[in-house]
């Protein structure tokens, strides 16, 4: 391999680590909490870790583990998971459109690893799409997030509550702070973006008590995005 190419790949991986590190900080305590809850619900360590490996979706896993513990029917749990995670279809559509020119070999694993957090970070860091080996950047974000999620659930499953409650509650704000830190610079650069986000917030806030958290986010995201058709400036990415 060419020396320069190797350096470029290394740089993308390093940038991916930096960009993905807030996700890791946010995921670890939540994954541990999930492991603890799932254990209390009666899941084995294999099942706890297996669910993280195979499903990789925080809120849905909390809900699923809780429902298994309550003895809810499989059908109901699976349907509830589908509803809660359907928002990822919308996010995936947006992200895949961003990385359109990548081969399916790259798109497929990235789509599979898409969560609220990996999507948010990857879609705000857009310039890497057109850089050489940019997919190493996105791949690193997705892989570190995935591994920290799986590792955290495993830890929670074996060790129980290893983080004091006050700290774990405080760390619960981490991912929200990350979402804010991703959004604010975009708003600062293009003020009109606030209309997109505010519409989504208000729609979600008003609708989720009526139609549930899952659909609330889906509809809020779609309606907010629609505002973008009118207010977003032409982008030549």
């Amino acid at each position: 391999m060419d020396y320069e190419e190797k350096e470029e790949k290394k740089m993308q991986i390093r940038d991916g680590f930096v960009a993905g590190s807030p996700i890791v900080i946010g995921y670890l305590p939540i994954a541990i909490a999930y492991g603890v809850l799932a254990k209390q619900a009666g899941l084995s360590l294999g099942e706890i870790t297996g669910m993280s490996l195979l499903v990789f979706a925080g809120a849905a896993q909390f809900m699923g583990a809780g429902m298994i513990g309550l003895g809810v029917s499989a059908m109901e749990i699976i349907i509830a998971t589908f509803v809660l995670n359907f928002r990822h279809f919308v996010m995936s559509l947006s992200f895949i459109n961003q990385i359109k020119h990548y081969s399916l070999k790259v798109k497929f694993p990235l789509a599979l690893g898409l969560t609220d957090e990996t999507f948010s970070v990857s879609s705000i860091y857009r310039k890497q799409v057109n850089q050489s080996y940019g997919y190493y950047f996105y791949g690193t974000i997705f892989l570190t997030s995935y591994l920290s999620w799986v590792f955290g659930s495993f830890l929670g499953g074996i060790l129980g509550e290893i983080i004091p409650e006050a700290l774990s509650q405080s760390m619960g704000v981490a991912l929200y702070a990350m979402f804010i830190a991703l959004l604010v610079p975009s708003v600062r650069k293009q003020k009109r973006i606030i209309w997109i986000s505010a519409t989504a917030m208000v729609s979600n806030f008003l609708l989720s008590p009526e139609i549930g958290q899952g659909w609330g986010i889906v509809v809020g995201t779609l309606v907010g995005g629609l505002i973008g058709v009118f207010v977003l400036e032409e982008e030549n990415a």
Partner: protein
Amino acid sequence: MTWFIILGMALVTAIPRVIPAYIVDLVQFPEWVNKWLQAIPYAALGALIFPGILSVTPDRPYVALAAGGVAILLSWLRVHVILVVFSAILTVLFFTI
């Protein structure tokens, strides 16, 4: 039975995530749809932040709002995202301990 549930959850989560990888190449979106998709990240962030952030401290929503305010202020001042995250954590910790 639990494994059956886990596999079912995995499938209904994975399928909606990967379908776009196959359809985006097949359809040529009109310009307004492209714009819509470009706006989705900002909309999704909005919908993910609020009202979800209130659930961090369910009994005292103002604590979560204060942490959110700190995060907004610092990121407006171009503070790095990691420091924003830590400052928000410390804000909640400050009110909790």
